[in-house]
């Protein structure tokens, strides 16, 4: 078994992932506390509140974070919360376009400049996040489309971290840490993460500094259930179920083989 060609394994997992799309399992999903906390927080927000959608993840991670992003944005729009978007990835324009297409209310119900703005890309990592916490206008002079910041009425209300009621960082790396350090610890702004599964390394900050975390595609599926609108996250969970089961079986088989080989050698 140990001598099996890798390509057989690769074909195996590739084909295994096809099956649940052809024959959905429809297994129920239980909502975890880390997801429910974000839902409850947004339920308390309304038209007077401003949420920051900080994009710190690329197009490459869409499969994991797109369901959560779309579900949370739908919730924000349903609650009529104002939204400021900026980010740190060069391909984030595609992400914003995708969110706008998936949540058409951003263009039909919301007015750009008053209800939502997209400020564009920023380099600088933690330096940029720290600077934005103290003075947003010192960094951004215009939005993504070249409109001077003075002409954006929403941005006249957003001068620093203290003017944001909730930070939602769409994260595949360390930006959640920057926001915790400089926005939450520094200025007291609540911070939540919409992250890939590996972002559970930030769980030690929950709930003291990190108020909620949507963990990967599972978090997206849970949030879709909470807002009552199932989407890509829920569909993808069947593939997750099957693939995880196969991985577990493979680990068990590999270890059984190892134990048997050791006994034979003895």
């Amino acid at each position: 078994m140990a001598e099996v060609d890798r390509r057989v394994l690769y074909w195996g997992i590739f084909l295994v992932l096809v099956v649940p799309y052809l024959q959905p399992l429809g297994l129920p999903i239980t909502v975890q506390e880390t997801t429910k906390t974000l839902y409850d927080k947004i339920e308390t927000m309304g038209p007077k509140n401003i949420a920051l959608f900080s994009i710190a993840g690329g197009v490459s991670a869409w499969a994991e974070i797109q369901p959560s992003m779309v579900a949370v944005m739908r919730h924000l729009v349903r609650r009529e919360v104002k939204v400021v978007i900026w980010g740190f990835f060069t391909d984030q324009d595609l992400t914003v376009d995708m969110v706008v297409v998936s949540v058409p209310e951003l263009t039909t119900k919301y007015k750009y400049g008053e209800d939502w703005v997209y400020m564009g890309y920023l380099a600088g990592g933690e330096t940029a996040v720290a600077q934005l916490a103290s003075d947003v206008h010192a960094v951004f002079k215009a939005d993504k489309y070249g409109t001077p910041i003075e002409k954006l009425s929403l941005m006249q209300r957003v001068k620093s971290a203290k003017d944001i009621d909730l930070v939602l960082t769409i994260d595949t790396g360390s930006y959640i840490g920057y926001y915790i350090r400089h926005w939450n610890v520094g200025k007291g702004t609540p911070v939540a993460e919409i992250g890939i599964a590996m972002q559970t390394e930030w769980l030690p900050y929950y709930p003291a500094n990190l108020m909620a975390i949507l963990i990967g595609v599972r978090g997206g599926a849970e949030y879709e259930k909470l807002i009552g609108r199932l989407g890509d996250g829920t569909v993808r969970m069947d593939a997750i179920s099957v693939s995880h089961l196969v991985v577990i079986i493979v680990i068990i088989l590999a270890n059984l083989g190892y134990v048997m080989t050791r006994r034979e050698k003895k």
Partner: protein
Amino acid sequence: MSNILRKREMILFITGLAGGMMMFEYFFAVPAVATASTIVRNWAIIISTLALGLGILNAVRLHSGHIRKRTKSQWIFSVWLLGYFVVLTVIGLWNTKFIVYDWSFKYVYTSLSSTFYALTGFYIFSAAYRAFRARSIEATILIVSGVLILLRNAPIGEAIWKGFPILGEWVLMVGQLGGMRTLTFVAAVGLIVFGIRTLLGLERGYYGGVE
């Protein structure tokens, strides 16, 4: 004059001054320092934006080298890379909505970006099969903890046995917390030590370490 500017003490002074200013601003409320820090941070952000091109410049030099040397089974692809890059950049700087740039961004970049990232799915499956052996107590704990998380994440875990998500949730929210907290704490210690060494001029890697 250029002899003075070349001296490493000048570089270390600027690094120490910039870093010291950031820390002073955090602990002491002095308006002049806060204003200066804001300006310097803005400078750092703009410099970082310009630094994006540096990696690309290196890549262009590398592939130009391949083309010049006619590196076997590489130079043709380098020609394609540089040609496509130049065309896209020129068009993108002129008009990002022009069909060539827009199409490349939406269909070539998006699909390849996701596809390359997803390649690791194959490798991790292979790793799970070949590498995860319970050779010791530590390895066994690692595998059991991993499997419980897998069964917590996938709805099929709950379908097999209702206890799996409960155990998995415990591992995630309690079991792993101590270890993760330690890694966070220890990383902070390392960061502070390395940072202070950098600001004191004891670490020279970032500027090449030579006069």
